[in-house]
């Protein structure tokens, strides 16, 4: 096992990885920026290395600096967390080149899952269903029109190298598709130097359901069942729960098995997530993408399965075997997570960095149990440089009703002053009939209207 582990990340995920490292007797060393250097979470590390100023492009995103920092502090392995460099194949390769174990899959696997069409091909080869659409990249607009006529409008034109909504167009008829094809291609060419497009049926009001995967170097791949992540705003998840209220036990087992088989076919090592979109009409689950890293919402899967995902991630990176058999992993109760962000939900989710004058986390309000993953403390200043996540409340109950009640009490007992948080949004969603019934989708946030002012 490693003696020292370098964490190339900050804040909440750095704290989470350090906790798992210590549970294995590994000493955590963490990257910091100048503005994070004096924070309580940084002080709690065994050692920190300052990579650069507050701007992440000059610190946390510096590939060479992170590798050099890990080497000069005597670390044998590096955990990239999520965000920043977690899915950067060049970074993973540079770690390898310098004898550092990158805690994640191989650079070539990260690379192939990063491009849209190759990842879909790999998923299809591995037996997953794709969203109906073109067979590969489109030759020209005529082929696009032909495919659209076959699968039916509305359709989505997507750039192979796309990201962040660029090179993407929703088209509801032939005329829009003709125009959209040219625009999307030009936009993708300009932004990514690659104008290749493919086409998919536009599935509206679907559900985002993802499966947690763990693989070791000995060919074993386990799934830890699914997470329901349909409560989103602009593709940012707000609330997640596990198991999904949309699946029955048979569908749950089938989806988990299919995802684990697909990951095994890819030779997947480490923690990963396969995301699916559930068609609102047919109920079919289509492959969307694979994330080759730890996810923010991993905690709810840990609650219901009892598996420490980060600890297993480090163990398998060190070449150890996953000890559990798939049959040992069962769903115990229900877990739900609310992301408490420094954003004002009544003002279009405007970020609200500033001084956190009060921050008191409720404890043991029952009826289930509450886990709080956070890196902030009362008296901290929330810096403007980084994402707005302050804390994750994770409630675990014997069933969904108990988990929801535990979360409701936790939200009511949470005290945050000095910065505006997303707490009122979570309270409104939990109180809504739509959420309570479990019948919700990615189309809207139940219990919340964009112009709502509390």
């Amino acid at each position, binding site marked *: 096992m490693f003696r020292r582990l370098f964490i190339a990340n900050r804040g909440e995920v750095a704290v989470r990885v350090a906790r798992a490292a210590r549970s294995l007797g590994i000493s955590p060393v963490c990257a910091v920026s100048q503005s994070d250097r004096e924070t309580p979470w940084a002080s709690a590390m065994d050692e920190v290395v300052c*990579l650069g100023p507050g*701007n992440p492009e000059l610190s946390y995103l510096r590939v060479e600096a992170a590798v*050099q920092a890990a080497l000069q502090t005597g670390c044998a392995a590096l955990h990239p967390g999520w965000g920043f460099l977690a899915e950067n194949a060049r970074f993973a390769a540079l770690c390898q080149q310098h004898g550092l174990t990158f805690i994640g899959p191989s650079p070539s696997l990260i690379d192939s899952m990063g491009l849209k069409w190759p990842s879909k091909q790999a998923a299809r080869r591995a037996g997953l269903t794709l969203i109906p659409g073109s067979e590969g990249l489109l030759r020209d607009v005529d082929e696009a029109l032909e495919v659209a006529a076959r699968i039916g409008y509305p359709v989505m034109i997507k750039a192979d190298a796309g990201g962040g909504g660029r090179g993407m167009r929703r088209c509801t008829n032939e005329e829009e598709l003709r125009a959209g094809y040219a625009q999307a291609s030009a936009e993708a060419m300009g932004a990514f130097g690659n104008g290749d497009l493919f086409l998919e049926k536009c599935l509206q009001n679907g559900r985002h359901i993802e499966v947690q995967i763990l693989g070791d170097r000995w060919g074993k791949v386990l799934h830890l069942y699914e997470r329901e992540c349909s409560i989103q705003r602009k593709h940012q998840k707000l609330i997640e729960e596990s198991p999904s209220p949309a699946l029955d036990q048979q569908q749950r087992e089938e989806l988990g098995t299919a995802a684990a088989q697909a990951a095994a076919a890819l030779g997947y090592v480490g923690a990963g997530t396969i995301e699916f979109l559930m068609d609102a009409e047919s109920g079919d689950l289509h492959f969307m993408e694979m994330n080759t890293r730890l996810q923010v919402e991993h905690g709810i899967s840990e609650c219901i399965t009892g598996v420490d995902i980060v600890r297993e991630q480090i163990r398998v990176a060190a070449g150890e075997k996953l000890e559990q058999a798939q049959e040992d992993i069962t769903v115990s109760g229900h877990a739900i997570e609310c992301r408490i962000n420094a954003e004002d939900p009544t003002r279009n989710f405007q970020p609200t960095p500033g001084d956190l004058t009060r921050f008191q986390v409720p404890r043991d309000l029952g009826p289930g149990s509450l886990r709080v993953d956070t890196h902030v403390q009362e008296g901290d200043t929330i810096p*403007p440089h*980084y994402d707005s996540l302050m804390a994750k409340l994770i409630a675990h109950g014997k069933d969904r009703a108990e988990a929801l009640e535990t979360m409701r009490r936790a939200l009511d007992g949470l005290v945050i002053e000095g910065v505006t948080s997303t707490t009122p949004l979570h309270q409104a969603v939990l109180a809504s009939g739509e959420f309570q019934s479990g019948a919700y989708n990615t189309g809207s946030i139940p219990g919340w209207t964009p112009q709502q002012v509390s």
Partner: protein
Amino acid sequence: MSRPTLELLVQRHGDELWLNAPAVGLFTDAQPLDGLLSPGDAAGVLMILGRAHDLLVPAQVQGRIQGPGPELVRQPVDYGTRVYCLSLLEDELSGTEPNDSPNIAVDEKALVLKSPQTGRFYHRASPTDEPFISPGDRIHPGQAIGMIEVMKTFTTVAFSGDEGWPTRLRLKVWLAQDGAEVTQGEALIELEED
């Protein structure tokens, strides 16, 4: 083949000047105690992933080495680790201040637009786009002049105008550079009557 170079960071500390490491790496080839450092001098080497980078003394910095340079040789340093402490020379003490505050002085009466938030300020919507406006361009109330990034969220900064200001205005100069970190209330642009 010349080696890559990095400029040391300067920090003023009372009557002393500190020169700090500009990156993470192993420090070596330090200059001896009591030696003189002048702008452009190579004052050591930083090894980053096995590659040597010459550390250069920045402009307007001159002084005598008091420490700790030689003690740090072959030691790992962070970004910001103090590698030299310099005592300023007599003529330097009365001379120019080190340039650690690049802020442009703005006349109190100048027509400036201030930043609504603390964050990073951009002149363009994306790296491949043209700037929203350029010096000399006419500017109207409601017009976008830049973007501000706070916690990965981008918000357009629009010119709101101000009562008592001339109605015809144009951009005189950018006071905050493209990609600069700005604090709330910091001047972003200066305007002039058209």
